[in-house]
Structure formats: structure tokens, C-alpha cells
């Protein structure tokens, strides 16, 4: 272990970094090839003339995932593909398409992943129902424990001070 020496990652200040790493499969390279923008801030100053369309536009662009900076919405992402997708949303809305039309269009090209809110379908049902199921389960456990413990109350002789609800 102590003898390991890595072949030089040639670094030249200010120049593109050519590293032995880039020849490794996919993962790192995919993330490298952005239009030299980090996933910082985008300010989307689109203002559609119709306020109703504008609010639908804002809602939709905050609902669609940026496919490059994948933890941002296309509203917030600065990369080129995000502004292309925003333009697409804008054009579709102005052309009179519905919100669902826009979503379907995006999903047909990028898959369900592009929607931040998973649509309720047979596939995603378990995801949406899980918290409810957990709550019901929790309630059942609580009932069981409470029944058991309140039955035991009279039986122990703990000289507990009831005066001070100290932690």
C-alpha cells in the first residue's frame, strides 16, 4: 500500500485537465460533459403575457427535473438543456397544450424520471401508500402497547413522586 504511486494526473493551470480518469467508463465522464457550467443558478426571466399561462409555466418548470443537473428543476438549472426544455414548455403552453400534454411529451423522451413528483400509477403506488401504511401500523402498535401497560398500572408499587414532571 505504501508504495502505490499514481501516474500523473497532468494538470495545467487554466487548461483542460486531461486525466487518466477520463478513460474510465461512463460515470465520471458523463458528469464531466456539461457546457462548462456548474449546477449553480439559473434565473429564468420568462414572462408570458397571459398570467394564467405564466403561473402554469412556473408550476411546470418547477416540476420537471433538469436531466443534467439532476437534483434541480429546469427552472433553477443553468445548463443549456434546461433552457431548451423551458423553451419547449413555453412553446407548448402558448400553442394551447395542456399541462398533461407537456408532461407526456417530456416523459416520452426522458422517462418518468423527469417528473419530480412521481405520478400515481401501479408502479408508484407503493411509494405513495407506504407512509399511510406505516401510520396505520404505528397506530396498531401504539394501541397494543397502551393496552398492555395501562393494565399493569395498579400492579407495581413504585413510590413515584407525581408532583414534579421532571424529564
Amino acid at each position, binding site marked *: 500500500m505504501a508504495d502505490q504511486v499514481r501516474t500523473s494526473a497532468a494538470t495545467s493551470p487554466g487548461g483542460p485537465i486531461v486525466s487518466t480518469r*477520463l478513460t474510465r467508463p461512463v*460515470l465520471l465522464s*458523463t458528469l464531466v460533459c456539461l457546457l462548462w457550467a456548474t449546477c449553480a443558478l439559473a434565473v429564468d426571466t420568462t414572462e408570458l403575457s397571459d398570467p394564467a399561462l405564466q403561473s402554469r409555466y412556473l408550476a411546470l418548470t418547477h416540476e420537471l427535473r433538469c436531466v443534467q443537473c439532476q437534483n434541480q428543476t429546469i427552472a433553477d438549472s443553468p445548463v443549456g438543456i434546461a433552457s431548451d426544455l423551458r423553451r419547449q414548455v413555453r412553446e407548448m403552453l402558448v400553442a394551447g397544450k395542456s399541462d398533461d400534454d407537456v408532461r407526456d411529451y417530456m416523459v416520452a423522451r426522458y422517462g418518468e424520471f423527469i417528473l419530480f413528483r412521481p405520478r400515481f400509477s401501479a408502479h408508484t403506488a407503493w411509494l405513495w401508500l407506504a407512509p399511510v401504511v406505516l401510520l396505520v401500523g404505528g397506530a396498531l402498535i401504539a394501541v397494543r402497547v397502551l393496552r398492555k401497560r395501562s393494565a399493569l398500572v395498579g400492579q407495581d408499587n413504585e413510590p413515584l413522586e407525581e408532583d414534579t414532571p421532571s424529564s
Partner: protein
Amino acid sequence: MNRFLLPLGAFVLLAVVLAIGIRHSPEKGTIASPLIGKAAPQFALPVLTDPKRQLSSADLKGRWYVFNVWGTWCVACRDEHEALLQIQRLAEVPVIGLDWKDEDSLALRWLSELGNPYEVVAVDHDGRTAIDWGVYGAPETFLVNPEGIVVYKYVGPLSVQEWQTRFVPLLPPRRAARS
């Protein structure tokens, strides 16, 4: 049954899921393409070397082709360029290029300096065609069959090894034997 075994059981399940996740992880960040098995998107775009000419998806029907999305601004595309040249030499499958969100003059210079593996390059200035193909980063490479169905999509810089292991098995045997 000892109900205190439940946490351990749940953890075992979790570990299995995570193990599978690791196995798949080289593909993380890549979105599975919904286009696989579907018709390649229609397009009609100007050709890089002769903007008055148009390349349309109809022109490409009837044969296998590789559709490679690239740009001169893309560092990883430069990495894969050598591999593309080799693939062009090796295989009988034409490589069609899509120059994405780029400047024509830069693209022409790039190809003259580094070599041109493409049979023809279509130019997508505003990115609409790329959206239709579900492109979200460069480089991306598609394999389309003679019926115009997208058979495979590869995200990231292609290497000759990846070509042999992932693309060639999908080609009909006569072509594959030549690679």
C-alpha cells in the same frame, strides 16, 4: 417467531437492495432511454458540410446506423473521437453525427484537425432534435436498425472496447464478423 428478528430481516433486505445498487452504479446518472424499441425520432436538419442540403431520418432508413451526438465544447467528445475513427474503420456501420448546440466553423475545424469519422453530420443549433432523441449530455450514441427502430443507447464517451461488448452483439452476424 421472535419479533426481535424483524429489524435484522429488514436490514438484510436493505443490504440486498444496496448491493444491487452498487452493481448498477456505473450507470447511475444515466437515465434509461424510453426510446429503446421505439421508432427513431423524425428530423430534417441541415448538413454541416453543405448547409443547403438537408439530412432527414427518412434518408437513413433501410440500413443500420450509429447516431452520435457531440459538440466541440464537449471535453469527453474529444476523448471518444479516436475511438469513433477506429469504429468507422472497423465496422461497416456508418456513423452519423449530430452536432449539438455548436458553431459550424468550430465543428468544421474540429473535424479537419482531428479526422472525420462521420459519413454525414447533421447540425442541431437550437437543440430541438436533441430533445426529441432524449439527449441530456454529450456524447451520447444510439444504434438504429434498418426499420428505423432505436436498438440501443450509450451515454458517455465510447471506447472501442465498449463498442465490441455492447454494440457489436446487437448487429446481425454478417456485419459483426467483420468488426
